[in-house]
């Protein structure tokens, strides 16, 4: 693959460097290059980005430890994806960069060669589409994505947008009230019957039985799942004080989406009621990637206890 890429490079007008060759970095064009990363399978990146694809725009940060992508939705939920440098085949960072980009466009580019699905499970199959990400310093230059499959190379140039501030949930890691770690597959099975169109989701975590309860309240009834502390699905259970909070249902839709590719899920709630859900995702390399969500509790819903009683019960008799 590398040879093919260099073949392509020589055809470029302004040649991008073959970053593995240190001597070539002396060329003037390369002063602009801030970041280059190479990945053998674009599926890795695409599937992780898909789990946090709940808003149009995302912030891309390239850090010495890896890349971080932040997605926010209306100031009430934030999703972060961390991909460590060791997941990449090659990772060169000149300067830390941060910009905003249109997430859907990048996802479409990453999937430009199509997404083959397993005929039985309908899960995406691994492909051998390689991807290279190049970015130059100033933001007038587009983000460059090169995707290659079997000698066919696609170059994608994506305009970047101005950086915006992201909210800091100020999750108090030192003040975590409860922490539960689940096996992703088991938890997904537990959530399989939960009505995700319900009005809100209630989380109840206590030291007594039931230790963990998730309730979806809809009109006409409710669905709930109880997971006991000694269930094989639960790896860790820590609870310093009982927690009973309500969260918007759409948050849990994001959780279910991420569960498909994760191996473990950790749920932590701090004293302010902010829920931090972290997913451990293993791809081909041994180093896992992390996707995390921050949800704020739904204050309005917490006040209306009476809303759980459906109002469409009509009594016929007097």
């Amino acid at each position, binding site marked *: 693959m590398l040879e093919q890429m260099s073949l392509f490079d020589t055809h470029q007008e302004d040649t991008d460097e073959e970053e593995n060759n240190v001597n070539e970095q002396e060329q003037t064009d390369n002063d602009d290059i801030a970041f280059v990363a190479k990945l053998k399978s674009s599926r890795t990146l695409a599937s992780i980005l898909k789990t946090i694809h709940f808003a149009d725009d995302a912030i891309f940060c390239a850090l010495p430890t890896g890349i971080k992508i932040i997605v926010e939705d209306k100031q009430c939920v934030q999703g972060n994806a961390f991909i460590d440098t060791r997941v990449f085949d090659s990772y060169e960072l000149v300067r830390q960069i941060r910009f905003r980009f249109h997430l859907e466009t990048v996802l479409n580019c990453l999937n430009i060669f199509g997404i083959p699905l397993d005929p039985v499970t309908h899960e995406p199959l691994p492909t051998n589409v390689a991807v290279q990400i190049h970015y130059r310093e100033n933001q007038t230059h587009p983000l460059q994505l090169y995707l290659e499959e079997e000698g066919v190379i696609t170059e994608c140039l994506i305009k970047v947008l101005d950086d915006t501030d992201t909210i800091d949930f100020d999750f108090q890691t030192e003040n975590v009230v409860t922490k539960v770690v689940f096996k992703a597959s088991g938890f997904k*099975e537990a959530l399989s019957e939960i009505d995700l169109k319900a009005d809100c989701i209630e989380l109840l975590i206590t030291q007594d039985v039931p230790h963990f309860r998730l309730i979806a309240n809809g009109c006409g*009834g*409710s669905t709930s*799942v*109880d997971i006991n502390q000694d*269930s094989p699905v639960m790896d860790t259970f820590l609870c310093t004080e009982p927690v009973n909070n309500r969260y918007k249902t759409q948050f849990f839709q994001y959780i279910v989406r991420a569960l498909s590719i994760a191996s473990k899920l950790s749920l932590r709630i701090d004293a302010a009621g902010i829920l931090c859900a972290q997913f451990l995702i293993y791809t081909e390399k041994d180093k896992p990637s992390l996707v995390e969500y921050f949800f704020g509790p739904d204050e309005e819903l917490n006040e209306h206890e009476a809303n759980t009683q459906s109002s469409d019960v*009509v009594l*016929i008799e007097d």
Partner: protein
Amino acid sequence: MTEKKFIFVIPPEHVRHFGKALQVLTKLGEEIYIELITKTNGLSFRTANQSRSSYSCITFYRDFFQEWPQDDLQKEKIKCRISAKRCMSAVHAVLSSKLTRLELVFDDRKSNLSFILHCRYNIIKIHSCFYIDCEKLQARFDKQSYKNCVSIMSKTLQDLTAHFPAKWDEITIRATKDQFIIKKCDEIVHDDESIVYGMNFQVVCEPREFISYDIQYKSDITFCLREFKFLLGLADLLNLPMTIYFDSRGRPIIFCFDAEEFYFDGTFVFATMANREGETDISFNMTQTSVNDTSTMDEDDLVSYRQYTINTTGVNRGGKKRPAPSTSPTLETQINPIDEEFNIDEDNISIDPKQRISTTNHKNTTTTAFGDTTYTVLSQQSIVGLQQSEDFMADMTDDEDEEN
């Protein structure tokens, strides 16, 4: 309102049967009526479809359950209804998980029915829905009065009808002493009264396909295929002998099964299409008397009557008068009035004001006679009337006369 909680526990070996039976019911109606029958020690689940042309009842007996509510059930009973949609999601959960235990809890204080599913890995799922106290849903039919009675394994019946495409609205059975033919309805009568013949195929069975075959009366009846297929959905799980009672056009067809080893039974009553224009079933009229039948048909009644069409979206009164008579009592479902109150479904009407309806006392009866109400089908839907007391009928008559 009592403070009681009724808890029924279903052992793991019966969970699938319960789920499948309830799944069939959720497909056959909008609401499921639940009743605890203390006499026979059974918990029954009943439903009727929106146009009241089918009635289904599945009763689970004491031995089906691992645990049964204790104490004297004489005083407090369960008589309620739940939404079929809510039930469907609970049933779906029941059927898709491997359960170690299933509990049904009726909480009278909160008017809540909970399905508590104990799954593997120490996970407990609870599906709850609100229930409404109501009167019981009861259909009036008399199995003994039917002339034809056949019994066939449900899987055989399913295999025979498997190839009938679901898009066909109806299915016809033609039964004689020598043959049992299942086919598509021959004619499609349109509103403009033209008759169209469509492509057809039929399955011809000999009596030896059946476990028992007793045909006294040559039958040619048509009923809804879609609901019949839902009913046969149970056959996937249980291959049971199913008894079918039927005779003339317009009289409902009854399917019964009794899963003795599983301790539950079911009865499904589907209305059949009444006679087409110009045909009379005179022989049937003559012989149609039973002990409790207290109504008669006048000549006037035979000559003119009204037709009503009921479609699923609401009441649609088509006031066409047809000269030809058709005297086929159809299925009557009734919600037993107690204390002079009863629920009238706004989808259902009516009755020809010129007929006399029998109003036998139907409080707490299970099977009684059928009144001679006449309905003919204008569209391809069979109609079922809701039995009402005579007092109420008198009020209605005035309105109906104005309609025409």
